[in-house]
């Protein structure tokens, strides 16, 4: 394998990244970095766009050459907000072709610990949002939630609510990425807010009352003698408060 001084570009999609990595490994190139094609290179950096295949079958190839667990891992890394995720995926894949599932125990290898840490981070945030996400009922019996997670976890969160609220219509909007997940009591699909506009977001008649009921429950359930702000903040960081509706009074109080 030979080191290259180029930053290789791919077309922003996961499939593109995988096809590029396949080509790089085939050509025995260790890239300096891999970035999507919106990347703004600085004066000292050189970028290169290779003519890689556009092959959807790459997913099966990768699973065959490594394992399903490895594939799930790199997909989660791809959905993370980490800057260097592409090159981390490259190293992780390269080594997992050799070690298969043993890779998960070989944190001493280059980049493996980093990769597994990011995976955990994405999984952890997914788990948090299974709890922190709040639906509001809109007119027409549609449940609507807004989120702003650090990582792009809309798909994983949607899978959870597909099972849990299977007899409801719901929509989850990732405000950070302008993505929507729309569920029609059967399947959910992800789309960009450019393709789909929510015509009305008017709340249903009982919504305010339910919210008030919940807020008063939230306040009541705390034991005064045990007040522990730090502990609360630890488990429920402030960055998530914006959409956790029972926290709206706290936000006002603090601002």
């Amino acid at each position, binding site marked *: 394998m030979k080191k290259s001084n180029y930053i290789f570009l791919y077309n922003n999609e996961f499939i593109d990244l995988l096809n590029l990595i396949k080509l790089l490994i085939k050509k025995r190139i260790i890239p300096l970095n891999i970035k999507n094609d919106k990347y703004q290179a600085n004066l000292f950096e050189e970028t290169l766009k290779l003519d890689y295949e556009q092959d959807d079958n790459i997913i099966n190839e990768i699973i065959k050459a490594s394992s399903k667990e490895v594939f799930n891992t790199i997909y989660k890394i791809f959905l993370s907000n980490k800057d260097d995720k592409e090159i981390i995926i490259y190293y992780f894949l390269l080594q997992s072709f050799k070690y298969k599932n043993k890779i998960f125990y070989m944190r001493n290898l280059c980049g493996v610990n980093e990769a597994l840490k990011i995976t955990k981070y994405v999984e952890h945030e997914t788990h948090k949002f299974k709890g922190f996400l709040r639906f509001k009922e809109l007119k027409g019996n549609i449940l609507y939630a807004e989120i702003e997670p650090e990582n792009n976890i809309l798909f994983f969160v949607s899978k959870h609510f597909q099972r849990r609220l299977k007899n409801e219509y719901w929509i989850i909007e990732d405000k950070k990425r302008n993505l929507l997940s729309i569920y029609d009591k059967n399947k959910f699909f992800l789309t960009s807010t450019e393709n789909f506009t929510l015509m009305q977001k008017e709340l249903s008649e009982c919504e305010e009352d339910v919210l008030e*009921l919940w807020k008063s*429950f939230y306040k009541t359930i705390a*034991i005064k003698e045990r007040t522990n702000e730090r502990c*609360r903040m630890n488990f*429920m960081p402030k960055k998530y408060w914006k959409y956790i509706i029972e926290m709206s009074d706290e936000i006002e109080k603090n601002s």
Partner: protein
Amino acid sequence: MDLKEKLTILADSAKYDASCSSSGSNRKSNGIGNTAVAGICHSFSADGRCISLLKILLTNCCIYDCKYCLNRRTNNIKRATFTSLEICSITMNFYRRNYIEGLFISSGIIKSPDYTMNLIIDAISLLRNKYHFGGYIHAKAIPGASDVLIKKLGLLVDRLSANVELPTEEGLKLLAPNKESDKVDKIMNYVNKNKSNKFVPAGQSTQMIIGATSENDLDIMTKSSKLYENHKLKRVFYSAYIPVNKDNLLPTLDKPPLLREHRLYQADWLLRYYNFKVDEILDKDNPNFNLLLDPKANWALKHLEEFPKEINTCSYLDLLKIPGIGVTSAKRIISSRKYFTIDFKDLKKMGIVLKRAKYFITCNKKYFTSENMFNKKIIERNLILEETIEKNTNIEQLTLFK
């Protein structure tokens, strides 16, 4: 009385129960909802405790007069009782909006244990059968209720539990004269014998109040250990006593004994996951936990002859005895060392926290610093220092509340 006021009264009365877990069940339903084996926390209240379930009493009316309890008969407080319909409506409205993972319902005793149990059963069957609610339900069994009713309730809920409340019979006689511990025992026995995928799938738990009576930590842990052994309890919760009533029989405290509660949770973990026995961590000469050091570190310092342990060769159970090494870390070490020899640098890469552990291990026969630093006094001083810093900067208690 409007619904909001009712909810405030009946949540306020229910909040002293420490249990919040929504884990251990894998329920699926055709209606709304399911449960997550790992449990899900939906919010955290200002005291840092997790809010997972709608924690309420069916009623705060009670024929009993337990000294420590806010709802005791002789207290002059506002009383309220939910109808089944109200309980269903709040639960469904909260659940659909993803405020909660399910319902946790307990109750004061009206008329008789059986009468009260029937009210709870009515509410929950309505929720399960008419509203097709498939989320998590934890119900308190009323001590003294008949087996038929316990069976009926157990088939509807995920977790059924009865509170021990006080660790010893004497304590109970003193503060809760209407409660008898053998009635609680009877429920636990029944649940344990009949537990299945359909009957109380998430198992049972209980709670003890800490610091209202004169028991020492050894009494408490002995009781817990018996409960785990005899009734296969999933959890024992410890609840630092908070004075809500004035009574000559009750102690006066400035602050609830939170650190003591924390130590009990740590020790509880040692019993359940680390293969420790009560008599290893406490004995007649030292019947209470060291408030300066966590129970495992405290034990390790007393058994320094067993250390340092070699990370690359010692057994899984030995790894678990190292302060600062938990179940995840121990498993990670075991599966990694098959493939390479671990040194200190690798431990860090593996995400293993060395803050406490480093004093008690060798990696590839090397100690982290000069070997003459392996000395009880030095280690003890450093550990206490670390713990104090930790406490001042963060977490303190409740990190175990899952």
